[in-house]
């Protein structure tokens, strides 16, 4: 789609806002509707849009498959690692209160933030991975 100037320009303008909105949904998840799942998908949508307009190779430059793969893994690890941390702190698995024994509420706040971040990273990178795998099939 190299010759569709309007699409190229408009998408370039929109893209930062898409990503920003993704981040907003991610971190506002504690207070309002939102959270890792939705944020991840929105964030990935930015990449997919980029790919649609500028081609797969461009996406792969920004987000190399191997990096995406590692991100998938590390998102899950972040999630599960938090759970393990709570266990190390003497609580149950994913008992966020244990993160800050003095102020359990604060610990829960922190815990849910980190866990949602993990979810967000995983969802976003999985979506990107799915897109780039399907789009790259038969061309690579």
């Amino acid at each position: 789609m190299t010759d569709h100037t309007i699409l190229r320009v408009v998408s370039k303008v929109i893209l930062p806002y898409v990503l920003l909105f993704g981040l907003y949904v991610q971190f506002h998840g504690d207070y309002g509707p939102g959270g890792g799942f939705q944020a991840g998908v929105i964030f990935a949508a930015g990449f997919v849009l980029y790919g649609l307009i500028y081609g797969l190779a461009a996406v792969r430059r920004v987000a190399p498959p191997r990096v995406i793969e590692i991100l998938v893994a590390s998102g899950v690890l972040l999630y599960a690692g938090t759970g393990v941390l709570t266990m190390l702190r003497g609580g149950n698995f994913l008992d966020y209160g244990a993160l800050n024994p003095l102020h359990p509420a604060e610990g829960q706040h922190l815990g849910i933030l980190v866990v949602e971040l993990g979810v967000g990273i995983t969802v976003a990178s999985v979506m990107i991975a799915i897109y780039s795998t399907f789009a790259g099939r038969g061309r690579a």
Partner: protein
Amino acid sequence: MMDNVFGLYNYWVVIFLMMTGFYIVISQRNLIKKVIGLNIFQTSVFLLYITIGKVEGGTAPIVSEGFNVYTNPLPSVLILTAIVVGVATTSVALALIVRIREAYETIEEDEILAQEKLT
């Protein structure tokens, strides 16, 4: 009687979608269409859960002044997970279809079976 038909309309919708999806899965020989049918089938269940969670006159389950009736948030949470599972299933299915197409040059079930008989 009328109450059953109109009062429970969302259940009728669920059942209609469910049967539609199920029928597509069974009757279509094209693998992509099968996946679409599967999606419709799953979606009907999502709707069923949402219906279960709805409390008449309730609002979104976020604590704020002036409201004391809230919709049950649990089914929505559950269904979020189910949607993720659905997405994952669809993507695995599509991935398999892509590879089936590469291996057999077709995504029609009959033709795949025919090729298997020959080889």
